[in-house]
């Protein structure tokens, strides 16, 4: 895939073509089913999405937290557009994606569904989407997983209040941006944090923090000087229970 930094790394052409075809199928489906998700789907491939997910995967790699036996729960996963291919590239055993937006999950399922007759798509057996609000009741299959990723902390209450912790590795991301790049209100950002300390204060007291840090969210140049624009920050905490 040649969109953004995260996917540049030498994917075989045939896999790129397959993912591209899936994207087209998704657009067709969103349109036909009138799901109203075209813009959100496009935004899920925005440069800052690639940047933050690549940052996450780099840290997971550095800390050597992932193997072909890892079963991953991704909370508030939306379409899984960028993160899931990265996890699949690392040959994880299984990905469970949890999303409460019932107009998103059919698209996600289409993006990662298995085509039996295609040699290169066996990996998509490894993805399961669950249409569920992970705060209202215990997420299904959670007990089968050993890593939990939540890059949507700004959309939900502080994670210290979440009731369903279990043994395993946890990766959390949040942001300080409650407005879009153009200045309008970011709908649904109900829990932005000010800085990494603020984010740490939202963590469960039993979480042993392995790594934490912040990264500027950079938007690509939109001017003659070709200068990238810093728009906000993302914060990440990796820990263990």
């Amino acid at each position, binding site marked *: 895939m040649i969109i953004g930094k995260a996917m540049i790394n030498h994917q075989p052409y045939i896999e790129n073509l397959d993912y591209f075809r899936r994207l087209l199928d998704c657009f067709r489906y969103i349109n036909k089913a009138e799901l109203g*998700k075209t*813009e959100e789907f496009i935004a899920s491939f925005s440069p800052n999405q690639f940047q933050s997910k690549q940052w996450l995967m780099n840290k997971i790699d550095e800390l050597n937290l992932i193997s072909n036996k890892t079963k991953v729960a991704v909370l508030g996963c939306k379409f899984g557009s960028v993160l899931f291919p990265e996890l699949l590239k690392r040959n994880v055993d299984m990905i469970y994606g949890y999303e409460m937006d019932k107009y998103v999950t059919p698209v996600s399922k289409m993006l990662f569904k298995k085509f039996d007759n295609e040699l290169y798509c066996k990996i998509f057996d490894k993805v399961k989407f669950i249409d569920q609000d992970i705060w*209202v009741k215990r997420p299904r299959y959670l007990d089968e997983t050993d890593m939990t990723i939540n890059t949507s902390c700004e959309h939900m209450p502080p994670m210290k209040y979440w009731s369903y912790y279990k043994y395993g590795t946890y990766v959390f991301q949040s942001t300080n941006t409650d407005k879009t790049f153009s200045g309008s209100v970011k709908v649904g950002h109900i*829990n932005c944090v000010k800085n990494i300390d603020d984010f740490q204060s939202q963590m469960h007291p039993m979480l042993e923090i392995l790594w934490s840090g912040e990264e500027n969210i950079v938007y690509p140049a939109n001017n003659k000087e070709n200068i990238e624009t810093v728009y906000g920050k993302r914060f990440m905490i990796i820990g263990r229970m």
Partner: protein
Amino acid sequence: MISILCLKWGDKYGPEYVNRLYNQCKEFIKLDFKFYCATDNSKKINPEIKILDYNDYAIPVGKYGGSNLGKVFTAEKIKLICDKRFYGTRVLLLDLDLIILKDLTNYLNNYHPNKLALYESWWYDEKAFKRNYGKISCRLNSSFMYTYPENVKIISQKLFNENYDYYAFKYYSLDRTIQYNFLNHIEFHKDKRLLYSYSNSKSKRKLNYKVCIFNNSHGKGEDLHDLKNWAYDYWKSYD
């Protein structure tokens, strides 16, 4: 028999809202009913109206905090509508900021809800609803709720005893909380000419519906007492 209920707390709406609503009910609901107002201030409310103590229906502050003081805004309505004192009657809970335009007698008399009946907000753009699903969007309205109080027990139990802190943080309004969590426990009024929203109508005219809601409790739209048109004159005529 029908128990007609309303809530008034704080100083956003004066007693004239309660009294005029009562007078409209007398004109447009020719059924045996009692009219109750749960309030923290009964001063100047018509003595024919039965006063209930607002504190009996006060709602908790969620432990997670959030917008709207960490509360599910107007969740008092759920506590009120399922009060055991109304068992054996049908209950109609009305927001104060609405006007009744046409007779409701037959509609209320012939309708026996199996669940809590709310109104589907047809004026809310469906595409916008899907686009913002789970965030701000909501396509139901609790300004005109009708039911048997026993039907609401399950919602009350789930709302206040299971995930209230989360609902207060994430949804912070009753309508949104119901939209995303309790759809299985409600039904929609079937009369498509029952309700329209003044704030969402382009012409702001009196339309061919039974009830006009102003729905300004969320800080959008206009309040009846600020208007200078037919709606204010109509409302004022029920003194």
